[in-house]
């Protein structure tokens, strides 16, 4: 494990090398891809990307929470949360690259 952080800049470099788009257009394209995924999710649509994974929007009911430090009760409003389920291909890739069998 190298433990580095990969950012948009690294991803747009990879896209730039793949298609030969300019760096600025590669960056813009990544933004568009992330934007389209986000818009679908905000619209309540799940996003399934084969061999990568699925982004699923889940509805959570409101409940009474508790501040663990003070013991104080606080209401938690109903909300929508996003969960990511990695595909088997991605899980295998992550373990294979790390030298672990899956």
């Amino acid at each position, binding site marked *: 494990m190298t433990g580095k952080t*990969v950012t948009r800049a690294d991803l747009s470099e*990879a896209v730039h090398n793949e298609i030969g788009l300019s760096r600025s257009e590669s960056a813009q394209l990544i933004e568009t891809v992330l934007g389209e995924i986000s818009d679908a999710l905000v619209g309540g649509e799940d996003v399934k*990307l084969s061999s990568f994974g699925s982004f699923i929007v889940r509805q959570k009911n409101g409940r009474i929470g508790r501040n663990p430090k003070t013991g104080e009760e606080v209401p938690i409003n109903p909300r929508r949360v996003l969960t990511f389920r990695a595909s088997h291909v991605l899980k295998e890739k992550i373990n294979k690259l790390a030298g672990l069998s899956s």
Partner: protein
Amino acid sequence: MIKSELVARVAELYPHLYQRDVEAIVNRLLDEIGDAMGRGDRVELRGFGAFSVKRRDARIGRNPRTGESVAVARKNAPFFKTGKELRDRLNADTRK
């Protein structure tokens, strides 16, 4: 929305690109994220979310049906944490 629909939606916004190029870009993007996680790196896409890898230690599992013990090897599990901006957008209409 599935990957081909994502590609079609993006391609519509870039009429000068071939749809197959957009497809190659989307695949490259997802591959890069997966490769980074394979190296144990974190992928941080501010506003969208962050992909990271969590280490799961080897453990003795149990077959829930038979109650039988089974050894589960150490493995790495992908993890995604939703970014603040996206989390806020998901709840923009439900918050009063």
